[in-house]
């Protein structure tokens, strides 16, 4: 599929959007706290605008989202977000096991046939991995990892 676009204009528009987001969340606070961010917002705006102008004058074109399967990275991204969302709910350990298994199962589909037997061999590996990290972080580094319903 051909997804070639003018990356200058697209990048510039993203830049202008971000400029606007930051600009409108500027609050009325003391000059010392605000003078530097204000200056940078202006600079970001100027750079983004000139990028858009360059996009019309001397555009550089490029393919976007042309690496492999877009569905696959989008689903992976979604699973990451769900994983992180569930950490404080069901605890670090359980969420890691659940979501790692799901991600492994999902990504493996493209390479091999996923069967129940495979899952049963993956699960102990994943549990061992998570336990390894869990113990290092809680017992040696004393990081209080989030707990959930179970532990």
């Amino acid at each position, binding site marked *: 599929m051909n997804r070639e676009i003018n*990356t*200058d204009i*697209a*990048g*510039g528009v*993203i*830049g202008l959007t*971000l400029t606007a987001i*930051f600009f409108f*969340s*500027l609050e009325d*606070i003391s000059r*010392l*706290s*605000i*003078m*530097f961010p204000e200056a*940078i*917002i202006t*600079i*970001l705006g100027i*750079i*983004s605008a*000139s*990028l858009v102008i*360059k996009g019309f004058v001397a555009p*550089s074109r490029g393919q*976007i*989202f042309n*690496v*492999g*399967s*877009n569905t*696959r*990275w989008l689903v*992976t*991204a979604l699973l*990451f977000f769900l*994983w*992180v969302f569930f*950490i404080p709910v069901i605890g670090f350990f359980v969420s890691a096991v659940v*979501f*790692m298994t799901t*991600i*492994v199962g*999902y*990504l*493996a589909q493209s*390479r091999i046939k996923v069967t129940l037997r495979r899952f049963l061999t*993956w699960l102990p*590996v994943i549990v061992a*991995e*998570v336990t390894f*990290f869990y113990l290092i972080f809680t017992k*040696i*580094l*004393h*990081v209080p*990892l*989030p707990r959930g319903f179970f532990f």
Partner: protein
Amino acid sequence: MLFETFTLLLDPVIILTVFIGVSAGLFVGAMPGLTATMALAVLLPFTFTLPPLHGLVALGAVYMGAIYGGSFAAILVNTPGTPSSIATAFEGYPMAKQGRALEAIGLATVSSAVGGLAGVFFLLILSPPLARLSLRFGPAEYFWVAILGLTLIASLSEGSVIKGMMGGALGILIGTMGVAPIGGETRFTFGLPVLQGGVAMIVALIGLFVIPELYTIAAKGKTALTAVNVDSRARSSLWQVTKKVFSMPGNLIRSCIIGEIIAIIPGAGGNIANLVAYNEAKRASKNPEKFGTGVEEGLVATESSNNVTVAGSMVPLLTLGIPGAPPDAVILGVMLLHGLRPGIELFTVNAHLTYGFILSMGFAAIAMVPVGLLGGRLIYKVIFRTPYYFLVPTIALATILGTYALRNSHTDVIIMLLLGTLGYIFKQFDVAPAPIVLGLILGSIAEMGYVQTVLGGQAYTYPFLRLFVNPLSHILIGMIVFSAAWPYLSTLIRRLKNRSRNNMEGRNE
């Protein structure tokens, strides 16, 4: 005196401490999110139970190992394990993609050891004058140092400089979120108290480098690592990589000096040193356009310069009691608790302890070679043998844990993931992650320098003119102008050279 102290270190317990410390540091460094500062803080209670020398030796070894360990993740998964190896990923990862992973690890190891030893050398020989130099940096100079750092964007932005500048400005803005360093009020918190803490540089670093890489692996359905080919295996032996590293003496010396100068500036450490050294290596290279495709000079420059900063940043620490980099603050704390006050006493009354500590860092640098080569091979094998569908969630697990552990904050994990996803989208439009991270590192330095200078000049009519009064500022401004103009100058010089060559050839005909 030095020799006597040296024999003191030949105690098997000390040697064992060094090896354990380096190995532990290596693990910490290789995990994105775990920083040297954190490792040292965790170690602190243990050191109270040890005699002062053993305690300091352990801290030095962990510090050394952690800065080096960051290179593994950079080479094998394109993720700087610590901010000190951002530029390592630029060359190390392409090398790994070409099946030269072991070679890259070997080069990083030997360069790091050389850098570590160079830092010890500077610390032993040049402490007093260097310490005095570090005091010359006031707020105005910090501002110019930050601007000088921002000129690196031109070489980090992979193609479009204007997009790099956009990324840099965005990075600076992200860095201003949270409590203002001066003024004390909160900015861009979007009404959420959790955002008072802002976006930690390391959180953004992890997000912007790791997450896009994971998405790419997922989309492609395979990892980018290629099996090590026979040719490269031969070139990765210790003897061959050592020869290679020493075949570029100019690069080594330059990178070590850059590392040392940046190390003595309080507050700047390996995170800036590696980028500057990389940039200078690129500028000095005969083929700068090849950088980014797995060039050995670039790798050697970054890995030697960042390990110089370990012992290098102790120069202001031991002589003046000024931590040159964040992990040094922990070491200063330990020294004060043992009743060791920085200053001349350290080198007279407590000379055995001080010199023992310094020399042990040299030991640690040497210990990195066996530990690193073995560990590096092991990590390589594990990563290479792991199928891609296992690698993605495993790296994600390490990343989530590391990010969380940094400030024990779930919010940081969310921010990391959001920024990473945005970073993947930015990458599509050729906005590279490196300038954004550079903006984050340098933005707060620039802001503080600027606002402090203006504040300090309240008694003058035009406070901002105080930025331009000191001689050191003038030197820095000169360097900025040169650095910004260099790409144009170099093309001009090349064109002139070509023309004269053409003329000569013309005459010969």
